[in-house]
């Protein structure tokens, strides 16, 4: 058996894992940002709707949602499993990112909004120029957690038939009867991806930190 080849086969799933993550995370961020703004500033009805969205999306195991959303998203439009899976994961993640951003928005004191309004800013402008930039900084750390979770959850798209790292490890494990090797390789790749991502975001956090006297 050619171990090198098998490792290479598993590693070539990394492209899928990274692509799925690179679609799901920004999509989740985009939706999460909009939803969290609706939640915090949208008035009673929207707050209610967003709260239900959040509860439902976070209350169901991601794999179940993935299945439901896969068949829903690509019910009539012919989406490939890759796109359906990525979009589904993005939608799942949007609920978590919405909560992260909502928490960050709420942690910017309401007085900042008042001060912005006091110089004649509209609500929208104050949210854009005053609240979001401050919330963004507070969100980086928890967001880094969510990024790690999405990287790992991206393996769930294997259930739709996307040949990412985990599915390849399973196939190698079945074909070589060497599960340890296969899964250790997969685990190491995931670890590296999460590690690098977290370091990058740590760096961003440090760079964005607002200077203050000790």
């Amino acid at each position, binding site marked *: *058996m*050619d171990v090198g*080849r*098998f490792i290479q*086969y598993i590693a*070539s799933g990394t492209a899928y894992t990274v692509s799925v993550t690179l679609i799901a995370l920004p999509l989740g961020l985009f939706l999460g940002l909009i939803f969290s703004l609706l939640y915090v500033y949208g008035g009673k009805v929207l707050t209610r709707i967003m709260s*239900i969205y959040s*509860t*439902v999306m976070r*209350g*169901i195991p991601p794999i179940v949602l993935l*299945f*439901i959303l896969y*068949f*829903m998203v*690509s*019910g*009539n439009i012919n989406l490939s*499993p890759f796109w359906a899976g990525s979009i589904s994961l993005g939608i799942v993640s949007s609920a978590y990112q919405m909560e992260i951003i909502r928490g960050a928005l709420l942690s910017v004191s309401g007085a900042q909004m008042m001060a912005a309004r006091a110089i004649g800013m509209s609500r929208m402008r104050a949210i854009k120029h005053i609240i979001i930039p401050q919330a963004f900084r507070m969100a980086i750390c928890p967001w880094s957690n969510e990024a790690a979770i999405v990287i790992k959850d991206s393996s769930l798209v*294997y*259930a*739709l*038939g996307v*040949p990412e790292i985990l*599915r390849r490890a*399973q*196939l*190698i*494990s*079945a*074909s070589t*009867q060497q*599960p340890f090797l296969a899964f250790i390789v997969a685990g190491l790749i995931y670890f590296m991806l999460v590690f690098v991502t977290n370091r990058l975001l740590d760096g961003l956090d440090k760079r964005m930190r607002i200077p203050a006297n000790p």
Partner: protein
Amino acid sequence: MKFRIVLALAIVLGVLLAGCQQAGEGSVLDKIQAANKVVVGTSADYPPYEYIDETGKMVGFDIELMEEIAKRMDVALDWQDMPFDSLIAAVQEGKIDMSISCFNYSEERDQLVDFSDPYYTSQDAFIVTDGFSGTFTVPEDAANFKVGVQSGTVQDEWLTAELVDAGLMSEANLSRYERVDQAALDLQVGRIDILMSDDVPAQAIVSQYDGLKIIYQGMLYTGPINIVLPDGAADLQAEVNRIIADLEAEGFIDALAVKYFSE
């Protein structure tokens, strides 16, 4: 709170199912011929029926058979690997045109999808460690041990229906694995006493894992294996059955069995 979630879920599922009803318009065979391509699903983690070789290419008994069937249908073949548990749903929802993955007929499955005529008949096997010292003379003796099985397979169904539901065996003693190789490992280290699987993969397992042997072989539930087809796709079913009959008559299938199943 709980009720609200259930309600929302029900709505989502309702939308989903409503969406799916519209999917099955026009014959699947027409669609395949129009596209000049058949999309076939398999779970390539079940040697020697379907697995990947060192180049990452799918090979195996089912794979080679399907390639011949597609050739005779005069269409290109597009493989779609996915976990075994997803295959039936994928056929049902039209994500794939059919699936070949060592499927046995069962009534439950027949309510969701259709089956081709059987293309091969396999047996069930019980695997134990060389040191196994329990009494095992009839299959039902499995009820007295910790048993492992691949989840969703017909062996799982047999154990559940004949032993667990019949009250012979406690649910706690039955471990369901996503893949059969996981179960083989647990058998080796003693987390389970017996592994039940299809006979062909069982042969592969005992030859590749040290200290394992087959203690019992027989046709309990497995028996014939078939290709899974969309519900109601009569013309496709007829076409596939015709080709299977030809291949059987020509000795193609027997030759394949010799190639993959005799070690």
